[in-house]
């Protein structure tokens, strides 16, 4: 969500502190994902005053047959930065989806999205990521 481990750690600790304080007062919400919702809002808050990416048209490519091998060559930190650079709510959708811990209904709930919105954000995210991969690791036929 942040593409910056220092900021991520601050958000993580602030969220846990909030949880501990609420627990001490017996005010822990009963909804299952409140901690993740809280963390997401803190992430969005943390990046509100950062430099925002320009609203430019990003290339989109169809998923290629060699996509998996291109992805394997990616540095995980680079992927984290690529996802964190996406505008919200696409950033939340991609981060929560590829964390692979949540059911799509959980993501709808957490990111306050509708099914068609989440679907569109993920589909576009895949195509944009593919375009980035193609630019980063050109395939022989594309080169």
């Amino acid at each position, binding site marked *: 969500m942040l593409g910056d481990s*220092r900021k*991520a750690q601050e958000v993580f600790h602030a969220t846990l502190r909030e949880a501990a304080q609420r627990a001490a007062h017996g005010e822990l919400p009963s909804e299952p994902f409140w901690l993740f919702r809280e963390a997401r809002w803190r992430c969005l808050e943390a990046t509100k005053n950062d430099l925002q990416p320009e609203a430019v048209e990003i290339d989109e490519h169809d*998923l290629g047959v060699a996509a998996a091998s291109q*992805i394997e060559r990616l540095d995980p930190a680079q992927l984290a930065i690529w996802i964190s650079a996406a505008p919200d709510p696409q950033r939340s959708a991609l981060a929560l989806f590829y964390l692979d811990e949540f059911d*799509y209904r*959980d*993501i709808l709930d957490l990111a306050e999205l509708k099914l068609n919105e989440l679907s569109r954000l*993920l589909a576009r995210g895949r195509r944009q990521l593919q375009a980035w991969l193609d630019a980063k690791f050109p395939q022989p036929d594309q080169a």
Partner: protein
Amino acid sequence: MKLLSLMRRRRALLNCAPIRADQSVERSMRAAISRVDGSADFISQQNFDRAVARVVRLIPIPAESAEWFSEKDLVPASQGTWKKMMRNPAVLAISIAVAVIAGVFVFNFLSHLNDFPASATARKLLGTAASTRPVMLDPVNAEAGTLSDLFFMKHGLEHYDVPAEFADFGTIGCRVFEDDESRRIAQIWVAEKHMQFFLFPAERDGKTGAVLRFPGWRYVHQEGWTGAVTEHSGVCFMAAIRGRDKDLEPYIARSKE
């Protein structure tokens, strides 16, 4: 239009299809996946997602934060599993069946909680009270307490005495009849709140023949009628009224005073 929207929804679900094949999914997602399972586009999407998820798992987490997670799952699985289990039609059906059976047991238990010897007969007689019409009784204009002589002299019924609490009520009619077990029942209709009195033999022990006694007054209920029953000298007396316990309580409380 409906078909179009259904197809759009399926397409939307497929875009959100779970990354892991072993991940449990709800029915609409399962149906959407089964329709395209094996298609090149969907396989390509799944391979893409799995590859991305593998790299995401490698994204370094600061050690200080990582130790909070240790080996545990990010999301507690029990809540979702429990909800999903409760939504399972088979579990739901069994739960409802168990609840109904438990309800019947509780109902029976509560119904028989206040049972006493002669309560079954008393309930039957409340049914009789509900169906009795004044013309079915011999007209008698007297005090209820004086009818014990009539029952003894005319029908040979001993100890068919109306308790003191109800003895001074004016009667409209009375009769003696046999129930389905050939027990002789005396029925008195009084003017007071259209109450009916019943006198009938107390229950006896099947082996010894001893009267099964019970102390004080006991209440029975049937079809909107309430009866207050007491036993004396092997004969039960029941005052029956269309209403509730509180309609009879003042008369019984009066005797205690």
